[in-house]
């Protein structure tokens, strides 16, 4: 007994040692800079430094709520993020079902290879591609022209920008997001389909009554996990696609923090906005994990 206890201690010591290098990096590069959030409560002047700047309490946060821009930005962030999550999941599920129904392995493989690909390309590169495609005389406008639509200036139009941001992200990620559903479907017992066929169920019935219910837990799980992402509308995408022309509809919290916090040297205000976002996100994330645990029985740890 005592020997076993000692052995457990030795093993745990190994565990601590294995965690040490990673934790050291996390401490240095994540925890240490966290000390810097104090500038959110200061009127930080670069020349005075963190220790010389004046403390202003919650002034920066108060200013945030009085700023007309802020509500616009919050709205943009939420609309774009919710659009991405909703559309993204829908597209991923539909695609996974289609893939599951496809009987040609060759076609399956080819299609999978091409739809996963955009996930691995950077927004710097995709922004160049999109601006080519979506330009006034670009491929998209010419395609829509075939149906008699007026050409649109997608990337600089406040009417279109949010939709483009959502569709762009859905386009980039739907294949990748479909992976979990594809996998969930592989574990469906083929016998169920056979039985349904004998009962005379058509294909649509089978999708609706077997496939979808079988992956429903996964869908619910992904939905809950995505709750934590609601304040994340995607800095890289917006930063590379937007222009002053579409700040009205395209500016999100992260781009705003960058532009105002650094470009205009309002460090404290920028940090306050960032902190606001982190706190809300953390609450949402913690909440959604609790929900995932409760409804889907999923525990991350």
């Amino acid at each position: 007994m005592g020997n076993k206890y000692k052995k457990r201690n030795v093993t745990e010591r190994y565990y601590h040692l294995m965690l040490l290098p990673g934790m050291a990096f996390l401490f240095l590069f994540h925890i240490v800079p966290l000390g810097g959030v104090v500038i959110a409560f200061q009127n930080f002047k670069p020349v005075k430094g963190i220790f010389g700047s004046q403390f202003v309490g919650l002034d920066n946060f108060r200013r945030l709520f009085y700023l007309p821009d802020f509500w616009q930005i919050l709205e943009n962030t939420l609309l774009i993020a919710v659009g991405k999550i909703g559309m993204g999941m829908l597209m991923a599920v539909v695609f996974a079902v289609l893939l599951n129904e496809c009987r040609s392995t060759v076609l399956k493989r080819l299609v999978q290879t091409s739809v996963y690909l955009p996930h691995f390309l950077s927004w710097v590169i995709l922004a160049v591609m999109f601006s080519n495609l979506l330009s006034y005389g670009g491929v998209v406008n010419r395609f829509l022209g075939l149906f008699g639509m007026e050409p649109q200036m997608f990337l600089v139009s406040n009417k279109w920008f949010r939709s483009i941001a959502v569709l762009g992200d859905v386009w980039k990620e739907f294949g990748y997001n479909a992976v979990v559903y594809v996998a969930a479907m592989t574990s469906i017992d083929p016998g169920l389909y056979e039985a349904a066929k004998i009962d005379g169920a058509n294909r649509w019935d089978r999708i609706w009554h077997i496939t979808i219910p079988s992956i429903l837990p996964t869908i619910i799980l992904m939905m809950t996990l995505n709750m934590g992402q609601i304040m994340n509308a995607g800095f890289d995408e917006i930063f590379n696609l937007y222009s002053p022309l579409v700040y009205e509809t395209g500016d999100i919290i992260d781009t705003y923090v960058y532009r105002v916090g650094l470009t205009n040297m309002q460090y404290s205000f920028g940090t306050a906005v960032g902190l606001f976002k982190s706190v809300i996100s953390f609450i949402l994330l913690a909440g959604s994990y609790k929900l995932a645990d409760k409804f889907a029985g999923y525990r991350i740890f």
Partner: protein
Amino acid sequence: MKLKRIAALLLVPCVILGGCQSAAVSDETENADNRQAEETETGTQQDGEGQAEADSAASPKGRYEEPVEVSISKVMVTNPHLIEGQSPSDNVVLDLIKEDLNIDVKIAWEAESSEYNNKLSLNIASGDLPDIMYITNYLTFREMADNDMLADLTDIYETYAGDYMKQTYATFGGRNLEPLTIDGKLYALSTANIGYGHNILWLRKDWLDKLGLEVPSTMEELKHVLREFVEKDPGGNGPGNTIGLAIHATKPVAGYGNKFGVEPIFHSLGVYPTQWMKDDAGNVYYGSIAPEMKEGLEILHDMYEEGLIDRQFVTRVGSGETDAIVDSGLAGAWFAPWWGQSGDSYINNPDIELTVSNAPLDGEGKFNHLLPSPTADLVAVSKDCPNPEALLKIINEEYDIYRGIDAEGMAKVQPIFDQGVSREALFPTGGFNLDYYDVVPKLGKLCKNLVETGVMGGDETTTEYDRWKAEGAKRYADGIDPSDPNAPNTFRDYYGRYVGSNILDTPENNPVDAAYYYTTESSDRLKPTLDKLEEQMYLQIITGEKPLEYFDEFVEQWKKLGGDVLTQEVQVMVDGQ
């Protein structure tokens, strides 16, 4: 117990992050000590043997006896065309500086231009500044000066500025140092914001000739020419592909010298968008909200509707793609400064011919245009730098070799520049530039003389560089073989220096001075929102996304969102002057 541990955990980051601040402080004291030590050292030196030597070190190009190291931050050149052995941190210019001045220049950091001010702010925040810094933002400069971070250059400028620097600065009539002088102390030097860089109208002369059209002067004539261009397609670009007037995609209306901007149309109506102006009663107002703006916007919207302006201009990224349109011969006209022609348009079509016009004229036959801001990018020295005069010495050296005052140095450097290596990448002060305020029209006259009479004129201020440019223009005028690698450059010399530069100083020109060129206290807080509102307004009204009446709404919003506050602040500054 537990609480204590948490407190300790929270404190650690503060200590590590704070380290830099206290380090900066101790650096400062150390530096002060050093300076004192140095002063006593030079003091003893002067007492002792080296009187003459000390004197020579205290002259514009005096060589330090002991090696002096200075660190510099500068704007990154993203396409420097470097050749073997030449890099921003190790190159022939730095070698000459070491050789002639005994200064070791270290590049502390570089940042691309759009990122530069951010990085400077970050470096300020981190409490560690290079000895010499390039500053791209006047407000950053003011903040640094107000917080006592910069060295006083007043006496240093008097003692160490070279002849060339003093001569060129003199042509600004003190206008360029005024905003850099705070409480009687000079804290920075301004790059020469040379004059005559306003937009003029550029046209395809070959197209005009083909259609038998006159060079336009008035707005109506301009529209007529554009209409003909678009309808008759003289360049053979195919139906619907010819663009009348190419304009800037994101900033069709900005400030001074905005290539592809359409400001001259507004100026011809006596209104100066994006500028602080003064009315007859001495009241400051913002040009962009003047009632006359509406007329200009209407003209532009009508031109857009009629197809005289590039219908797709809004989708061209920045000005880069607008340039591609002009270079590929699709556009018939554009507004740009005297340098608004590129070698690429010649490479694409060696038969291209251009002409320029002071158009559109106002009702009285005058071509109104703005004067440039007295200052542009700055260089300043950190207060902690023990040898602030090194900046002046470096600048003297750079310009002696660049302008051929030091012929031997120029002989070493020029062959490298001739291979296309960017000067800014090699010069430690990067984009800092010294020149005569009126250098453009002056050089224009030199070129005109040479091209039209075959005689190189000039006076004592004429440099090698000037003669080289004039010879380029002459070579082009005499007919250069398009396959000559220098042909595109001579094309630019000819059209920029000869054609473009000779209409800048003519009697119909009417330069107008704005009331105020700088930022004020609330600018950094209010201006971004206002600028955004304004930029959007131009694009929305020109493209018809919003009706012309939206302008009134814009004015109201502009005032409400802080425009009134800024106007008041500027008024105070102007009244105080």
